[in-house]
């Protein structure tokens, strides 16, 4: 039953109107050598068997239990009201709001999203969303290249390794050089000579959880005529200094931490917020406020001459579909929590991370970095990281994102907390670490 309403009579009536005698005859113009190849697909399933099959698959997954996984995505509090409102079928099954008279729902919600993102970042103009944090950074670098007409970018090694990989993929074909700034003590040192760079890209908090001197980086970039691109966790901005206040020209990031499930990595959404001076270079959709024929306030997609459907090969980006619905999840979440609720999430997340670090240090764990951190930090391990993660999972704890060898810690993992991590979860992680022999003074038998 592929959701087709036609009865046999309907099909006959339609064929008669068209003047052909079968559905297959509608395909007569196609080269016959191509028609109906052998395609090997599993047989169709009814709804009950489909759900049983999917539930059986889902049963092979496990996401329950204490959770300390980070590395750019974290399972934060999502208010119950969020999916109920954001996933109303009018929002879920609408297309891009090209007919504004009947799309005020999506348009106004997007305008409110843009407003919230400018408030969080302290910058002037937010677009309607991009795909994810990594592609947002790549688009920001392209914006800086267009704006400065320079053909190199400097990126801190503190930027998520996957983000840097995406940046390289996007910039290579355009002949833009990418130079990586090595970390010192977990922080990005001020670049000595960014003279040829279109931008300096740094992440706050960085991949290792450490807080960067973003103001210093902005000053160094600006002194050389480069832009500062700040890759930020939007939830952290409930407490941290906003990019606009430390001199960033572009703030980008991934919005998963604002009301979206981690969904094995996607979809979340990317965002980009810029100073007004860069408005004409901004990629992606943008909603503006205007009035209708009767003078009522209304919202519409605007400044579309930047986009591919108008400018084709001269567009600022090829992006068409963005991540509207996941951005709406964030909009509802931010509105549900307000500034105080968002602050409590961020602060609770910080508090639990620092409490965990303190307890680990007391138990003899080696945390190689001394610099102030936010809600994530590095722990050196005796066990190879991927094996440690598996051993912990076997004990019912999800923890231990491997830290790559490029950071030269030897074997090390990231540990991350959210406000959902309880003190009992901390106990469980410490017990599991003792059990696998990671913490001094205790072996497997001790658990």
């Amino acid at each position: 039953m592929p959701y087709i309403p036609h009865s046999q009579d309907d099909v006959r009536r339609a064929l008669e109107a068209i003047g052909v005698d079968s559905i297959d005859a509608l395909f007569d113009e196609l080269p016959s050598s191509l028609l109906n190849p052998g395609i090997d697909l599993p047989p169709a399933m009814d709804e009950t068997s489909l759900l049983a099959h999917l539930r059986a698959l889902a049963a092979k997954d496990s996401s329950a239990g204490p959770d300390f996984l980070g590395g750019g995505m974290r399972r934060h509090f999502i208010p119950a009201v969020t999916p109920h409102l954001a996933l109303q079928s009018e929002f879920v099954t609408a297309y891009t709001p090209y007919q504004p008279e009947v799309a005020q729902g999506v348009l106004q919600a997007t305008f409110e999203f843009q407003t919230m993102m400018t408030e969080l970042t302290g910058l002037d103009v937010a677009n309607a969303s991009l795909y994810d944090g990594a592609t947002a950074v790549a688009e920001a670098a392209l914006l800086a290249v267009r704006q400065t007409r320079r053909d190199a970018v400097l990126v801190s090694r503190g930027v998520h390794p996957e983000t840097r990989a995406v940046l390289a993929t996007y910039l290579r074909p355009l002949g833009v050089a990418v130079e990586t700034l090595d970390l010192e003590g977990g922080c990005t040192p001020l670049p000595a000579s960014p003279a040829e760079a279109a931008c300096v890209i740094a992440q706050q908090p960085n991949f290792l959880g450490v807080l960067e001197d973003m103001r210093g980086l902005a000053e160094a970039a600006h002194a050389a005529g480069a832009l500062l691109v700040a890759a930020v966790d939007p939830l952290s901005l409930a407490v941290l200094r906003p990019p606009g206040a430390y001199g960033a020209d572009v703030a980008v990031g991934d919005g998963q931490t604002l009301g979206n499930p981690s969904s094995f990595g996607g979809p979340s959404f990317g965002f980009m917020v810029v100073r007004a001076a860069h408005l004409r270079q901004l990629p992606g959709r943008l909603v503006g406020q205007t009035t209708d024929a009767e003078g009522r306030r209304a919202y519409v997609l605007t400044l579309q001459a930047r986009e591919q459907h108008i400018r084709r090969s001269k567009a600022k980006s090829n992006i068409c579909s963005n991540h509207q619905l996941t951005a709406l999840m964030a909009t509802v979440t931010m509105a549900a929590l307000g500034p105080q609720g968002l602050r409590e999430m961020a602060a609770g997340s910080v508090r639990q991370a620092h409490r965990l670090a303190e307890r680990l240090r007391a138990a003899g764990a080696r945390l190689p970095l001394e610099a102030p951190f936010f809600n994530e930090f590095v722990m050196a391990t005796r066990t190879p990281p991927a094996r440690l993660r598996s051993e912990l999972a076997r004990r019912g704890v999800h923890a231990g994102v491997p830290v790559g060898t490029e950071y030269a810690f030897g074997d090390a993992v990231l540990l991350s907390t959210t406000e959902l991590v309880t003190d009992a979860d901390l106990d469980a992680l410490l017990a599991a670490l003792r059990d696998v022999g990671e913490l001094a003074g205790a072996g497997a038998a001790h658990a």
Partner: protein
Amino acid sequence: MPEPRDLDFPSLFERSRPGRRAARPPRHGEPELEQLLGDGQLRERPPRLPEVSELDLVRHFTQLAHRQFSIDGNVYPLGSCTMKYNPKVHEEAARLFQELHPYQAPETAQGTLQLLFELQRDLGALTGMDAVSLQPAAGAHGELTGILMIRAYHEARGEGDQRRAVIVPDGAHGTNPATASMAGYHVIEVRSDERGEVDLAALRDALGPEVAAVMLTNPNTVGVFETRILEIARLAHDAGAQLYYDGANLNAIVGRVRPGDMGFDVVHLNLHKTFTTPHGGGGPGTGPIGVKSHLADFLPVPLVVATEDGYRMSEDVPRSIGRMRSYYGNVGNLVRAYAYIRSLGLEGLRRVSGHAVLNANYLRVRMQQAGFTVPYERLNMHEFVARPPEGVHTLDVAKALLDYGMHPMTVYFPLTVKEAMMVEPTETESLETLDAYAEALGEILARAKADPEYLEGAPYRTPVRRLDEVTAARQPVLAYPFASDPES
């Protein structure tokens, strides 16, 4: 009492009152943030986010939803967008898999990984391609992935410097030329012939040693199958170019013919079109790509692989173009597409394309009877292009349709047809709905003759009427204008 229509719909920021809120996260006491995070790291004033009660929040977003057309509420025959019904069971399916973290131990994600592995295989079978990546986040992102792979392929053969151009037909989606530019290519446009197909002579002239790829949609954007596709493939390959398939219109042919058999080397799919993951008001989409074996070494990382120890993500792709995004893809949508393919099977998917083409031809005939003309007098595939009679503007017809509770077709695209209306009803609409659509269009044309001013003023019954788009662009207001704007 004022008419409700005379009032501005309130902004969320106008509903805000200090101290209200809808949701509370768990509390852990107030940590000494300054001490924990260091000097100068904290923000000085809170962001002006709305402060509303849960009921106010519910009313706001429920009322906004009522100000929005959607497939669930309205017929929505946008050409090239495939606005078919999005089955509810897919939403239930997606919820089963949404809690996984991308970095959890792979042995705790075997169900999801198996699903992704099987989807790679099924999409390969349906497109006739040898290898599939599920990574791209949208159709345009899939295009960029595919063109970057073609670029890497030519570079590996020592022809990277020589092949600097990508050919697209004049009716191509805007993403095609924009993608070629993003991949560092310049664009050569070839015209269409009088039957709506690529002009072979023009293509032959454009092909040469500097061409890296030819990007095609088949059926193309006027809803016509490129009947000489095998010849086109031969010409492209003889000139050393790769043939790229834009999967936007796959719904016309799914289960019946395959891009791989037509000679395409790379294909992207729009899962939010043919495979009915919801459009979400503009996204998230999902744009997997499939390639022939000679390009498999260039696929982006990671790929899902099956090993003796179960499924896992592999970065082992010898000449990969690298990563296209973080993590693995829009898994939530990949689950929905998997559920769709498993619900329908091959026979169901063949019925999808058959009925999509049936409905489009039926609506074309009905619209012709209602007074619209079509530039190409032939059977169309899943969509067709029409024009209103001389003197009537497509924009006015589109706006008048809104008063019937019907969403217009795609308008003013493709650019090759004046006053174009591109109509794609999809297989999930009933004949009664299509009849009603054609009847509404007929009434609108009659009204246009009798009372042209009426049409220019339409719509009348929508939540807002025609918008001042010029002022929106000339004096942009892109965020809520708070009464007092403190310095940040």
